[in-house]
């Protein structure tokens, strides 16, 4: 009874789909049947029945290969709308038998077949791309295997009970450009701090003309900016044409500020987000859920 229950559970957990090799196997069996039938070749009958036996037993083996595996989310990176993000799935095999040729996928990408030894676990990175910001469930993790024979593709689907916050797509005006645009000729530039390679968007006043006159690469002047030591303030209402553009712009600036280690605040219509008080992830989540 227990055996039957276990068999049922194994069967229910997994799926088996025929592949093109299945039709090859059928063709082979038909050919051998004709050969055996026409001449009563018992060796051919035996070969034929072995192929049938392999076909039947391989279904049991293939289902057992996947049925005891367990999958869980191990870690995830920040996910942004329309950008590739990666999360890691831990695949463990608590049974006494190893599992072979197990591929892991989620409908968007997958891993190469792996062997997972008995009592062992492997970590598989999976890629994903979400089209919209907000909270999204992780796609089902799909295990598949052609073990033991290629005529059947065995599958098993795990629904990871995890959600991912998809942040707005970071796009818009780079922080550098914003800062350059807002640098006033007076009061904001402190001491001359050397030259740097000209970047698209630099104003004409910043161009270091002696380098142009010498026929060298166009360079721009660098100043110590007082503003960089001050807190940046971003206003939701002023940074884009529509809400999605504003959120994308703010996400980009948030990330760049994080990268540069700049303190900033975002004035949202109903709240003020301050990097000093809230973490970057919390700010991004607020933007994602807006």
């Amino acid at each position, binding site marked *: 009874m227990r055996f039957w229950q276990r068999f049922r559970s194994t069967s229910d957990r997994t799926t088996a789909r025929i592949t093109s090799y299945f039709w090859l196997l059928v063709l082979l069996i038909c050919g051998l049947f004709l050969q055996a039938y026409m001449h009563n070749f018992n*060796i051919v009958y*035996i070969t034929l*029945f*072995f192929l049938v036996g392999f076909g039947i*037993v391989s279904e049991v083996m293939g289902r057992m290969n996947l049925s005891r595996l367990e999958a869980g989310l191990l870690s995830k990176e920040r996910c942004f709308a329309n950008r590739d993000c990666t999360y890691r799935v831990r695949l463990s095999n608590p049974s006494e038998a190893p599992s072979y040729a197990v591929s892991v996928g989620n409908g968007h990408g997958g891993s190469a077949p792996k062997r997972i030894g008995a009592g062992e676990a492997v970590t598989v990175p999976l890629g994903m791309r979400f089209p919209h910001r907000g909270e999204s469930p992780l796609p089902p993790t799909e295990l598949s295997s052609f073990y033991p024979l290629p005529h059947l593709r065995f599958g098993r689907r795990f629904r990871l009970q995890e959600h991912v916050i998809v942040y707005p797509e970071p796009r818009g005006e780079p922080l550098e450009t914003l800062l350059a645009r807002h640098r006033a000729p007076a009061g904001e530039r402190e001491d001359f701090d050397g030259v740097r390679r000209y970047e698209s968007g630099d104003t004409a006043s910043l161009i270091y003309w002696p380098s142009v006159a010498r026929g060298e690469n166009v360079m721009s002047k660098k100043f110590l900016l007082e503003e960089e030591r001050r807190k940046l303030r971003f206003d939701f209402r002023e940074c884009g044409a529509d809400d999605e553009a504003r959120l994308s712009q703010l996400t980009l600036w948030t990330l760049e500020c994080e990268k540069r280690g700049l303190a900033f605040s975002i004035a949202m219509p109903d709240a003020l987000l301050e990097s000093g008080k809230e973490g970057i992830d919390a700010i991004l989540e607020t933007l994602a859920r807006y």
Partner: protein
Amino acid sequence: MRFSRRWLDTEAPAMPHLVDAALVAALLPHVPLLRMPMLLYGILILFLLFRGTMLQRKGLVAIGVLGALAVVVSFLGAFSFVGFSELGTFIQVVSALLLYAVSLQRLTGTVNFYLLLSPMLLLALSYFFYNTIFMLAYAVGVLYLFLLLMLWKRMQAPLIEALRAATMLFAGALPVVVLLFAVFPRISFERSEKFGFKETAAIRTGHDGLMHTGSEALLVPSQRIAMEVWFETGMPPSEALYFRGSVLYTERGDVWQPLFAGREFRVLSATRAQGIRYRVTLYPHRKRWVYLLDYPLGITPRANFTADRIAFWDVPVNDVMRYEAVSRLSERTRGSAAPQVLEAALEVHRGRDPRSEAAMERLRLRYGSTEARIAALNDWFRAQRLAYTLKPEIPDRDHPVDSFVFDTRKGYCVHFASAYATLARMLEVPSRVVTGYKGDASKGIENYLPLREEDAHAWVEVYDPAQGWERIDPTVFSAGIAATDRVTLELLSAEQGAWRRLNDWISLRVLYIKYVINKWILYYDRSRQMALLRELLENTLFALQLAAAFALLSAAGVALFFSLRRQQCGDAALCAMQPLLKTLRGAGEAKRPGEDMHTFLQRASQRFGCDLSQIDAAYQRVRYGGDEERETLERLKGLCRAFKL
């Protein structure tokens, strides 16, 4: 050991090498069939592959032309309608073309779908040529190899794991194969005998339809199997195991001949006759007749049947033949024999053997009835104390009976039968000589009886108007083996050497196994399937036994499957822990993947309230202590085995 371990730990080689292994295995049975040009072409391809040469366009064209020439030259004589009408030739051409195509594809270095399929096609083609036990073993072995190679590549695991998986598939598939083989309906056509290599093509001597008593009667005992018999319902006693081949009436010089005139033919089918049912595998003897147990009633496939109960087919037995027959041990051919037959059975050369004639005349005058005369002749013949020898002296052609009975006084079955038949005729009792084989039940196993050429025998049938033809074996009247005949003594004496006894014992069992495999596997057909079904329906005990055997086989297959499925532990410490892990797992506490042993043991201790610290400490010492901790390992094993919740 270390080498084999390393070999077993090998990962799968590249796909082309796996295909090469499969192709070489599949090509083996084709090698003896390849004609010389194709064989040379095959060797060239092997050489190129061995060197790892992959050809570009020009090289491929050159090899292609060479291969095409090899095919054409190989089958130059077969390019006619007559040649292709032979399926054997046709299949040879197909396999040569396949080899040609496979070699060209392989030399490109690309493994495509057709190349992957070709080993199986080559295997299927080889089935046309062989139908032997060796081929059966080879086919099963090659299937296993194909499976192994496929799994090895797919699993990306060491060879040992692929071997385990392949064996699992085999063990699981075996009950399916057995069941399907037994019950899958066989509605086949007659097996074609016009092509292929037969199991045994050797020409057998056998009987030639005559019986020589002169110099040509010198016998060379042969151990070669002449026929194999399987009795459906137990083996009859040795006294009844007479397989008749020819019936001889006329003595011409030192040769006994059959009677051809005025014969009567009847045809019986074994399926309708009632009696002892048996199956015979008859090896080629180049004659038309078949050997049947006295007294035959029927035979399948149908054969011509004479009034002398001799069956023969329209064509000589040039290949191994199998037939089913029915006989009745006690039956006598009641009723009157045809006058011309009785006349021939009384023909005797008066005046040729005066001493014998005088002795028989005295008996004839003394006993009136046929029955009494036969009894008197038996007593008289036994009283002569004639000796049995396999090296007889050649009797005097002018007085053969007198010479044998009164002078040489030794001979073997043909001399005994010839003399007895002639003496019976002198008593005016119709007689005839029957040649065939005499079985010995002690040389068989269960229902199986092999008959060798040395079992060839001759006996006599005498005619009593009240009883019909009655078999008498005059050889049993011999006084024993000639004391000077060492060869006969060695062959027939019960005091055989231990080595010979062992040899006989082994060879009999090998023959038996071979016969059983032939019977139940290679030549299992519709009639046998129907017989099996009938037996299942009529015999409940047999059905239960068969079901139990199948259940046992299935259980063994499943047990092997699951025992191989478990991963073998890799290191000594983990192996020692297995009993403990099993006990805890049974109690519902399994070690989690990736969890270290120490954490797991602590968790288990807390849950079950038991002290596992000793085991933990011992495990850690063995795990990280190396070879110096052998004593601790033993202790750990003991602790784990003794652990109980």
